[in-house]
């Protein structure tokens, strides 16, 4: 079919170029000998070596990953609880306003979230002495606040499509509500929990604006380091770092894809 429509092939190639050219050039230039990002002067892996000697950058990466993982875990717990409340207690008072409030961060500009949280944290420190200063805790709290909204939306849609009578059947067979939640509900919404966790992890790893507002000395995240170093001129080290991140992400996506494909094939084989 493609052969008959050469224009389609051209469009396809243009589309892929548009999507992947920047990434490909980034990967290529990470192996550039020259310090100048735009001048190719031969193949070298020296920026990778430099990267592993760049302590501030590595520390920032570790901080970011730590925050992202903690944030994703906390957001999953809170987001799932919020989703349960929204789907299961439709009759209750305040149901609608809860729905609006929980998902508000989705549409709120990041600058406003960041600023308002900063003001809140400062006020709280004055009033109750916690959180002390800005740092990991405040970034984490800020990230949980907006990640939770995304998790809620993801889990909510899964819960809404779940057949209620499956949980009723478990109750009917003698399982108490809490046990039903852990043995029936959780396994059934597990894929959406995983998706929500990954989403929250990525959002946190990605965030520059909110983190800039609520961070303090000694708590610099990776995007902040990258951003500030780029302002002084793009360093090939950053390219190397980006290449490593891309490699990790694409490996993870590939593995997830293979697992899902195998499951699908098994399903079809058994049917």
């Amino acid at each position: 079919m493609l052969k008959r429509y050469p224009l389609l092939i051209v469009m396809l190639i243009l589309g892929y170029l548009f999507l992947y050219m920047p990434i490909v050039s980034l990967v290529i230039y990470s192996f550039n000998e020259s310090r100048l990002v735009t001048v190719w002067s031969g193949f070298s892996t020296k920026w990778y070596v430099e990267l592993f000697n760049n302590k501030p950058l590595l520390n920032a990466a570790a901080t970011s990953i730590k925050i992202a993982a903690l944030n994703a875990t906390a957001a999953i717990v809170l987001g799932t609880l919020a989703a349960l409340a929204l789907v299961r207690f439709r009759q209750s008072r305040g149901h609608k306003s809860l729905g609006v409030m929980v998902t508000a961060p989705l549409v709120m500009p990041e600058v406003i979230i960041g600023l308002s949280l900063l003001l809140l944290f400062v006020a709280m420190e004055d009033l109750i002495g916690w959180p002390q200063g800005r740092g990991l805790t405040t970034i984490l709290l800020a990230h949980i606040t907006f990640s939770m909204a995304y998790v809620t939306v993801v889990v909510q849609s899964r819960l809404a499509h779940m057949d209620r009578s499956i949980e009723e059947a478990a109750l009917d067979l003698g399982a108490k509500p809490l046990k039903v939640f852990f043995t029936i509900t959780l396994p059934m919404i597990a894929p959406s929990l995983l998706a929500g966790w990954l989403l929250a992890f990525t959002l946190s790893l990605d965030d520059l604006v909110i983190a800039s507002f609520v961070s303090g000395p000694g708590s610099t995240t990776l995007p902040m380091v990258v951003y500030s170093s780029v302002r002084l001129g793009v360093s090939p080290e950053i390219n190397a770092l980006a290449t490593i991140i891309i490699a990790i992400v694409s490996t993870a996506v590939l593995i997830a894809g293979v697992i899902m494909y195998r499951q699908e094939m098994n399903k079809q084989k058994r049917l």
Partner: protein
Amino acid sequence: MPQHRPAPNDNPWAASDEEPIVRVENVTKTFGNTYAVDDISLNIHRGEFFSLLGASGCGKTTLLRMLGGFETPTSGRIFIDGQDVTHVPPYERPINMMFQSYALFPHMTVAQNIAFGLKQDRMPSLHIRERVSEMMALVQIEKLANRKPHQLSGGQRQRVALARALAKHPKILLLDEPLGALDKKLREQTQFELVNIQERLGITFIVVTHDQEEAMTMSSRIALMHEGRIEQVDTPRRMYEFPISRYAAGFIGSVNLFHGHVVEHNNDMVLIRSDEAGADLLVHHSQPLLSGMEITVAVRPEKIIVREQRNDEPNHLHGVIQEIAYLGDVSIYHIELASGKRVQFTQSNVQALAEQPLTWGQEVALSWNPYSCGVLSQ
């Protein structure tokens, strides 16, 4: 004229002194301003195969869900085996339910599904294994033990759901439209299987269904529900032969209704004058009726006998055949009376390709036995 009087009481459940296993006392359930269940009282006895029959929205599923503990009555009380369970949660009731969607746990195998309830009771795993294989044998799904629900056909899922609900040997099994999702052939076959299983285990079954044929085939008794109330509770046979209201008569099977008024009532025989019928109708009825009372006579289509000559005795109507429908086992005839009223009657097609004795436009005389019809005052 052959006269078959009904037995004075062919309803073994009516006179039982035993404490009923389910006692529903003045239960009402409202959702907002609508009455889903409106002041229902009902006794169900041990070992019964009891059907809640009705059109959709009549409250039958709500009543079943209140028995299961998934809804709490707005008022009234429910007793199970003498114990007040009105506010007992589902996981503490000696009842299990088979859901309309089957509600199998998608992440568990067939065997794990069946074992789930037993595990909640902390039964030793050896006993669980025994009980699970016993249940799988009962519903003939031994080979499916390690399948997941999505690998099963509709009929197989239905069996797993049944086995899972029976595994804990409940006192009562609730079934919500158990055969609703099966195709016609499988449904007919499964009806008899359900009855066999119920008889073998001796568990009280309470079934919700909208299918009158299904209810007639399986039940020991039927409760016909209409707009949140119980219209009539009776054995399938009495339900068909002696409906107490026009709604009950029309819901189960077909019926011809003639409106009229009572002329006289003596020796259990009522004489009714009906302009619609164009003749006087004689009906056996033992309860006293007042002269002049407005009343309806109900006659089932298969109770009507066709004669060719005219006759002026009671229960003899005259009309012209308007329509004939050949259904294989029976033929349905529509007769138009002089009053314009249409009467339906059926005849079995006993002989293949026998010459049709009746044909369109033919004038015929209809009659029926006074014991084969009923009077309805509501």
